[in-house]
């Protein structure tokens, strides 16, 4: 397989419609994108559909990619996240505005860093699609509530509530898991 020295070279080759470059780009990023999209769908079949759509968009709009504004991985991930959110919206997982629920908003941070990725993924799978999407966007991708609100056409408070709800569920699960672990030990 042809190797490309840099990201820029890879992009330029893809822009020249070189099949080897397109394949190289796909191989380089497909695993990360699969994992990213799977966090939103928790379904392998849907993830594959979204990846096909996502990479089609990547190749189509690659000419618009500007390396000064960010890395290629970030740009590709952004496209795939949008595809995943579009998919969720299409499948009647509409993100609704929720009124203030101050009790939910006061949640202490969860120490995810100490947990294994597989375990976190397992925990995320237990969330409902809306909570899961906002948890992913905020806690893993690093989007702000303003950006999430723009992306999902909801208000900022709703985003916060969704996140708080997800965190609460996760916290309960983690606590239960840790209790189970200590009991076993």
């Amino acid at each position, binding site marked *: 397989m042809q190797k490309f020295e840099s990201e820029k070279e890879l992009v330029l080759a893809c822009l020249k*419609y070189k099949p080897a470059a397109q394949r190289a780009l796909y191989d380089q990023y497909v695993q990360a994108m699969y994992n990213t999209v799977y966090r939103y769908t928790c379904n392998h079949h849907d993830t594959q559909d979204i990846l096909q759509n996502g990479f089609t968009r990547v190749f189509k709009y690659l000419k618009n990619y500007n390396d000064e504004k960010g890395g290629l991985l970030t740009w590709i991930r952004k496209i795939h996240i949008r595809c995943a959110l579009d998919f969720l919206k299409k499948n009647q997982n509409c993100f609704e505005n929720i009124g203030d629920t101050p009790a939910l908003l006061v949640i202490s941070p969860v120490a995810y*860093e100490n947990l294994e990725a597989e375990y976190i993924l397992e925990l995320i799978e237990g969330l409902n699609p809306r909570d899961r999407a906002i948890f992913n966007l905020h806690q893993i991708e690093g989007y702000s509530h303003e950006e999430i609100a*723009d992306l999902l056409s909801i208000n900022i408070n709703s985003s916060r509530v969704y996140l708080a709800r997800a965190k609460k569920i996760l916290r309960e699960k983690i606590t239960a898991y840790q209790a189970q672990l200590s009991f076993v030990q």
Partner: protein
Amino acid sequence: MKNLSDKFDRLPQEFDREAIWEGIKKPKRQSNYSFYLWGIFLCISSAALFFLFNHSNNIIPKHEEPSTTKQVKAPEIKTLFKAQEEEQNALVESSSPQKSDDAPAVVPSGRTNKKSGAEKNAIAGTSPGETGIDLFEKITRAEPQDKANHPKAHPGTFLSKDTEYEIEALPSLSIYLNSSEEKTWSIQNEKITVERKGTRQSLAFRATIGTHFSDFSSSGKEEPALRNDLEKPQLDFGLSFRYEYILRQNFMLSASAGYHLYKDKIATAQIRKSGNQFERVDYKLYNHYHVFSGQVELGKRFYQRAFFWDVQGGVGLKFHQVSELNYFVSEKELASMEQVKNAYQNSADVFFTTQAAIGKHFGNRYFIRTGSQINAGIDLTSPQAVNRHRIIPINIFVELGMRF
């Protein structure tokens, strides 16, 4: 958070890479579809011309030896031979010296009299026995007399005996060959004269397809507002009527009026900031220019055997009517409709035009012509301070016309 994201990226999830890859629509090098359209257009035009060359009937009769050998059927030739042998035997038996000295009638151009003895005698009101033409010696005997009487004639035009017999099987051909060369020529000359006198004028309907160059230029000190590089021309279409008058020495004067639709596409993007988020907005905008034009041209026509060539040049006037306008003043700002429209909407251009075409007459009245045309214009109406926009079209056309 980044660590968490990285952790997830490295998760070894199992999935069918190849199945996903197969489902991705990979962009391929886009072929220039306009190139193919042009190709198809040219192919159709060529096919039409080829068809016309092969199937149209010329007004002027051709001076060609009619091909006869292939048209005569074998049984007819055999019957002919039999009749001739019988006739010859009868002649030998009668052996009239007067008749044996008769020279056969010969067409001045060198064509021999193709009529059988029986036919010839029937025309002359005499019996075969009275004429007594020896068909086998007819050609050789006719040759010196033919040369002496008709300087145009030459021995090369004489037919072999076999061909002679075959030709004789066609009565209509015999009649044609009996007519004198002078008579044929005079008819032809008359036809040519009539044709030229009667068909000096023509009216044609033209369909064009092509593309154009857009040229924005600023005569003022300010930066060019309307950007050349954003506007990409697309295929243009046009319809026009054309009147032509053939002058002396095949010079011609023509006047035409028509409508053209020129289209441009602008494909670009803007980065907008809303809150903390940057949003990219892609634009695909289209500009449509409706152009009404009139032009006068002077040209020269060159006739070849089967077709004619035209070379023309002239001047014209065209009026732009803009139905849709979208422009970026800079890369970030989209100009308002009115701002741009004022620049050149309803503007008028004087243009110089030149065209080359090849055509073919078919029937007595109709002709088809195809060729290419290029125009270069000068904007007349835009104020000096405003950016000017010119369209320089290049197109190919197909024209159907009628002479009268």
